[in-house]
């Protein structure tokens, strides 16, 4: 059957959009111009103005004051020093741990058999968990300590285990370690040397990193399971993942208030119904509540990209690994993880970057006492401050930061591979 649109051989070679192509691009260009370029340009102009008398008014006077407020030079230097040394220490310590875990583990597996490697993994994971715990000091109380211990332990062990598979892609490992080390910044945020807005930014990155790490460890098994489920069940399972999106985002967040509040469902279960605890858990209006809210909101954003990668997995490669004598764990770490890496990277980006700027959850579940950079910017525009130029300057700073990160990441990937 002849196609309705005849494909000209010379057309295919030209590879440039004809008149038709350009015309079809008009809606996209208009959308980008109206909703991306224009607002950014307006924000850029505003960041150099001075705030006027009433909120939202500006004096048309050119000034660098807003950027000076965001980047107080002396404190910026101290901030970089404190944060930089902290990251280096944590990354270094954690990196050493992962290396030790992986190297010794694989040596033990080779020399003494799988069972001793397993014990080593357990030891290494516990050491990693304890180290991470000491580093973060994020949460207090028994329950939260156990939570952090479990999560950190699993992740440290897993990282070590995959050291072998990630070794060819050492850049990814470095990124993973640096991401992990972000979680240790929380005490850094209390240092008086740090400039105020950068302190909030550090805190926001911290929470976003923890959210990403938790989403990754919880989301990967789910995505893997759905991807490998039977064809007829896959759609149903995917729908179950997306059902929360059908309700309003605010209502879902308010539901968490009912669950976590002192006389809410969780405490009713633990204190009144079963009597496991004597006094109710005070989770709400703390950073832990904000992280719970963020994780809950962004978990589907981690599951769906990884599912996409897992679905495209070529089963014959896994079978080949088994045929060559790999154990299931080995096949997982050396074949499946590298193959699903695009999905993991996409998921991490989709969770990490939006959660930095999220302000609604930290407002509702943090009760206004856990300010993130999104809240700071929101206050400048809608709240009492009414200092639009300062808000614009903060926004442009965030934008530049993201663009820099993106370019660095891209460059690294092309070099590392």
């Amino acid at each position, binding site marked *: 059957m002849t196609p309705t649109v005849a494909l000209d051989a010379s057309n295919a070679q030209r590879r440039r959009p004809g008149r038709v192509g350009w015309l079809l691009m008009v809606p996209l260009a208009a*959308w980008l111009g109206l909703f991306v370029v224009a607002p950014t340009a307006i924000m850029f102009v505003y960041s150099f103005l001075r705030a006027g008398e009433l909120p*939202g008014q500006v004096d048309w006077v050119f000034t660098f004051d807003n950027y000076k407020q965001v980047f107080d030079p002396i404190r910026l230097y101290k901030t970089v020093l404190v944060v930089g040394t902290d990251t280096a220490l944590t990354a270094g310590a954690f990196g050493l741990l992962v290396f030790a875990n992986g190297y010794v583990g694989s040596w033990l597996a080779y020399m003494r058999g799988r069972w001793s490697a397993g014990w080593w993994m357990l030891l290494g994971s516990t050491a990693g968990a304890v180290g991470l715990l000491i580093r973060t000091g994020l949460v207090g109380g028994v329950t939260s300590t156990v939570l952090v211990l479990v999560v950190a332990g699993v992740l440290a062990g897993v990282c070590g285990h995959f050291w072998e598979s990630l070794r060819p892609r050492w850049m990814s490992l470095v990124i993973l370690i640096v991401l992990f080390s972000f979680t240790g910044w929380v005490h850094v945020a*209390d240092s008086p040397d740090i400039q*105020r807005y950068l302190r909030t930014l550090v805190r926001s990155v911290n929470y976003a990193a923890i959210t990403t790490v938790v989403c990754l460890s919880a989301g990967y098994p789910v995505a893997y399971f759905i991807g490998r489920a039977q064809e007829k069940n896959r759609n149903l399972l995917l729908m179950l993942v997306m059902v929360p999106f059908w309700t309003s985002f605010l209502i879902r967040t308010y539901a968490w208030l009912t669950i976590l*509040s002192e006389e809410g469902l969780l405490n009713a279960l633990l204190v009144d119904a079963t009597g496991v605890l004597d006094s109710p858990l005070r989770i709400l209006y703390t950073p832990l509540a904000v992280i719970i809210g963020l994780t809950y909101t962004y978990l589907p954003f981690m599951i769906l990209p990884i599912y996409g990668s897992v679905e495209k997995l070529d089963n014959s490669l896994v079978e080949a690994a088994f045929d060559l004598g790999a154990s299931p764990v080995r096949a997982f770490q050396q074949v499946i993880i590298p193959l699903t890496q695009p999905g993991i990277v996409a998921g991490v980006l989709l969770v990490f970057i939006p959660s930095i700027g999220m302000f609604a959850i930290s407002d509702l579940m943090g*009760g*206004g006492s856990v300010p993130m950079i999104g809240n700071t910017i929101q206050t400048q525009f809608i709240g*009492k*401050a009414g*200092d639009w130029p300062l808000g614009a300057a903060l926004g442009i700073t965030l934008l530049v930061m993201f663009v820099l990160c993106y370019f660095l990441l891209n460059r690294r990937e092309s070099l590392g591979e």
Partner: protein
Amino acid sequence: MKWSKWIRASVTGVLAFGSVLVGTGRDAVAQNKELNLFCWTEYVPKEVIDGFTKETGITVNLEEYDSNEQMLTKLLAGAAKYDLVQPSEYTTEAMVKQNLLQEIDASKIPNLGNILPEFRGLPHDPENKFTVTWMTGTVGIVVNTEKVTEPITSFKDVFQDKYKGRIVALDDSREIASWAMAMQGLDINKVDADVLDKIRPTVEKMVSLIKVYDSTSPKTSLTNGDVDLGVVWSGEAAILWSGNKKFKYVLPSEGTHRFIDSFAIPKTAANPDAAHAFINYILRPEVSVLISENFPYTNPNGEARKLLAPEQRDNPASYPPGNPKLDTFRDIGGRATRMIEDMVSEIRSSN
């Protein structure tokens, strides 16, 4: 053949683009058949709005805010034209200075006489040219007497170390600063760098003890039991008290301020006649009683007060007994407001 491709592409492009605009298009509305009401959250009951629409046929488009600055920002942005706004007293002062309000035509509001004389001729509008008083109230302390057995009579009693993490406060930097100023006996309307330096340690202590900041509905965390003490609007306290007598309302001994919220018509209002009609409607005693039933603040309408149920009139949060020492906020200018906001948000972010 190429022509049809061209036509198809251009039609698709135009349709795709046009559909975006069509969705946002709006028919021209006959003047004064609509009212764009911009008011505080939890302040104008739905029954009042529905009653007004039923009687006059004017549709009311309701939009809400929970801080005066939010209202100003949206009003000045100019995207939506509001017919009625509800500024507090210091915001009204600023708006009058900046020429943002239009004069109220008293001849269109015969019910204006219902307002008690003590609520007319106030400092922010001495000649009653621009505003009609809606509701007033105070900012004071709510105590959950079941959890807090000690007597609480002042800000100092509230902000003690033993109540750390059990306090809710309004999410308003100027309010927080004014409580610190009251605690140190300073004038709440004199704000400069020296004053802010003086109150900084007090504010730091307060912020370290406060668990929740909420201006929209501070009663939520009190009823949930997440906090035991709060410094909140009097209407919230009144609702708590009528729900459960364990919530006592106390006016702090160091002195507090009362707020006066009024209706005002912005200069850019599209339906000023509908605005006047609405003001006249809510000044009717039976309608005003409805408002008080839903949001028990201090009602300035004398005729309405006569129709209140005895329990409402006895509510100590709505109608505080005695003659408490009450200030009002004055307009301190944009720069001073920003200095307060700067300091308080810096302290909040370093906690």
